[in-house]
């Protein structure tokens, strides 16, 4: 049961083979047992979850159940959820019980999904290892000495360790794809604007996008069906008619043009990852795909551009945490300015403070043109690279990260090293494109490695099609870590 996909669970519930309450109980028991080892969840509230499950059972009893009614899921602690602590992995919001629901949470509730808990994450989604959480690092279930990736590390761990069949997550520079890759699960970041940002605690507004994690591409499609869609409360939410993301899953890959960017296979890519990605590409060729050599010449520049733009936006998005209306306030202070400075010094962790300072500097008088404006121009170049590439291919394939998950603490004092490892994921966010990570193999040390699929704008269904056909031909996504 615990290894079942979302889809299988929904069938079990529909067949009344199990109740939602029993199912939630099963997962909650596992969480209780495993969370001390994995630290995947920041908040678990058994009674509240069971209550939601009983309500779902009542809906089913009335004959009003939908496809996912009663299925349990985990939510990244970045989505505001009424009555639940929404900490965003920060001491600043450790006491913040949200008085409202994010759009993603509303959609999940409407679909009848049962919240199992709130997953661990890098503070304010800033990080690639979940080591920047105020609540301590989450651990990779394949090797607890390894990082699970980040920032959505808790969600990835929860799905990989079968503590939840699916989870919500967010991706600003790779925060869905990279932990999905490191934990051997399927993760999808939609096109910017497909999922409303309303109620999603902001990191970098022009890059943030909510998405999903699950065992399979098909489950990701079902989850995306649930959370995608227009929301008038987000001015950047795209007004499009709803689509069924499962509709192309079974399509043939014959004739599909798969672009392989030269720059993604150059220096810096580990042998393990190169081997796994090449094998995956070979598998897709067997399924009928044609490989096209493409170039994304500005890939390397996406790192400096991203590490200017994201901190710039973050530095002002996080100005609201001032100890006045909610959240942490320093216990002692001399005056107003001192209250601000101590509150923010205490409430934010090191990485968050670092990025706020970088962002403050690049926007400050006399530096704006050299940094922020320059980065925006490079963003255009990076984005144009993709436009050109998609002239000759339908999807782009590549690695998610240069290596499999590194050891916990390995980069603790070297933020720059962490930044550089985001090289294959950042440009997708700069361009606003959709991307996925699909389990594709393992490193020599047994840590999972994912294959990145990048789609054109609003081409999630095709991306899912590629991932699904790949998963039908392989079993990497069925591998489960021994706990």
């Amino acid at each position, binding site marked *: 049961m615990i290894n079942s996909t979302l889809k299988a669970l929904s069938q079990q519930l529909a067949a009344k083979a199990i109740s939602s309450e029993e199912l939630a109980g099963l997962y909650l028991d596992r969480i209780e047992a495993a969370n001390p080892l994995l630290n995947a969840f920041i908040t678990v509230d058994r009674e509240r979850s069971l209550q939601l499950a009983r309500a779902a059972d009542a809906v089913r009893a009335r004959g009003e159940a939908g496809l996912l009614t009663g299925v349990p899921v985990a939510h990244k602690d970045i989505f505001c959820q009424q009555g639940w602590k929404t900490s965003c992995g920060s001491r600043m919001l450790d006491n913040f019980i949200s*008085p409202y629901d994010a759009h993603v949470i509303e959609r999940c509730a409407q679909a009848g999904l049962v919240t199992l808990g709130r997953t661990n994450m890098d503070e304010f989604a800033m990080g690639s290892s979940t080591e920047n959480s105020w609540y301590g690092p989450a651990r990779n279930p394949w090797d607890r000495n390894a990082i699970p990736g980040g920032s959505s590390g808790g969600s990835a761990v929860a799905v990989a360790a079968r503590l939840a069949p699916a989870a919500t997550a967010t991706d600003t520079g790779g925060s869905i794809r990279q932990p999905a890759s490191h934990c051997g699960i399927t993760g999808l970041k939609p096109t910017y604007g497909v999922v409303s940002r309303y109620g999603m605690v902001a990191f970098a507004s022009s890059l943030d996008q909510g998405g999903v994690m699950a065992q399979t591409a098909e489950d990701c499609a079902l989850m995306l069906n649930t959370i995608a869609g227009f929301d008038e409360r987000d001015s*950047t939410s795209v007004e499009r008619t709803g689509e069924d993301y499962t509709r192309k899953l079974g399509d043939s890959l014959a004739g599909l043009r798969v672009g392989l960017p030269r720059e993604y296979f150059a220096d810096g890519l580990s042998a393990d990852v190169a081997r796994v990605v090449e094998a995956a590409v070979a598998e897709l060729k067997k399924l009928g795909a044609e490989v096209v050599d493409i170039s994304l010449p500005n890939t390397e520049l996406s790192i400096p551009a991203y590490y200017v733009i994201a901190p710039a936006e973050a530095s002002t998005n996080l100005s609201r945490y001032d100890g006045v209306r909610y959240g942490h306030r320093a216990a002692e202070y001399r005056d107003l300015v001192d209250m601000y400075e101590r509150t923010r010094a205490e409430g934010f962790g090191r990485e968050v403070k670092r990025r706020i300072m970088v962002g403050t500097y690049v926007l400050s008088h006399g530096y704006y043109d050299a940094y922020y404006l320059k980065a925006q121009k490079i963003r*255009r170049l990076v984005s144009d690279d993709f436009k050109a590439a998609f002239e000759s291919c339908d999807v782009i394939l590549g690695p998610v990260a240069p290596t499999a998950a590194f050891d916990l603490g390995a980069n603790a004092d070297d933020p720059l090293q962490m930044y550089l490892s985001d090289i294959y994921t950042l440009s997708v966010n700069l361009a606003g494109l959709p991307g996925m990570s699909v389990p594709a193999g393992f490193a020599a040390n047994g840590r999972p490695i994912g294959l990145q699929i990048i789609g054109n704008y609003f081409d999630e269904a095709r991306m899912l099609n590629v991932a699904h056909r790949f998963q039908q031909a392989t079993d990497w996504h069925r591998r489960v870590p021994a706990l």
Partner: protein
Amino acid sequence: MSLTHQDVARIAKLARINVSDDEIDAVGAQLNTIFDMIAKMQAIDTDGVEPMTHPQDSALRLREDIVTEPDRRDAFMAIAPQAEAGLFLVPKVIE
């Protein structure tokens, strides 16, 4: 480029983050490694490139002028660090 002690102190002040004087140089050193990486951008000729502020190149949607938000003061005040008489309290603001 290299951030000086004063630069770091100024940024910290602007960002309203207390950084003690003996931490400043360590913080500055890390910022400098980041800015060294960022400096790679400067070598690229971007003359005539239109800055990209947003992944979407469309127009802002506007809402109708109607009141939709109810009064939720009690719920909001309940989680305020310090409140009284329906007001958020802060250390004295001097004008």
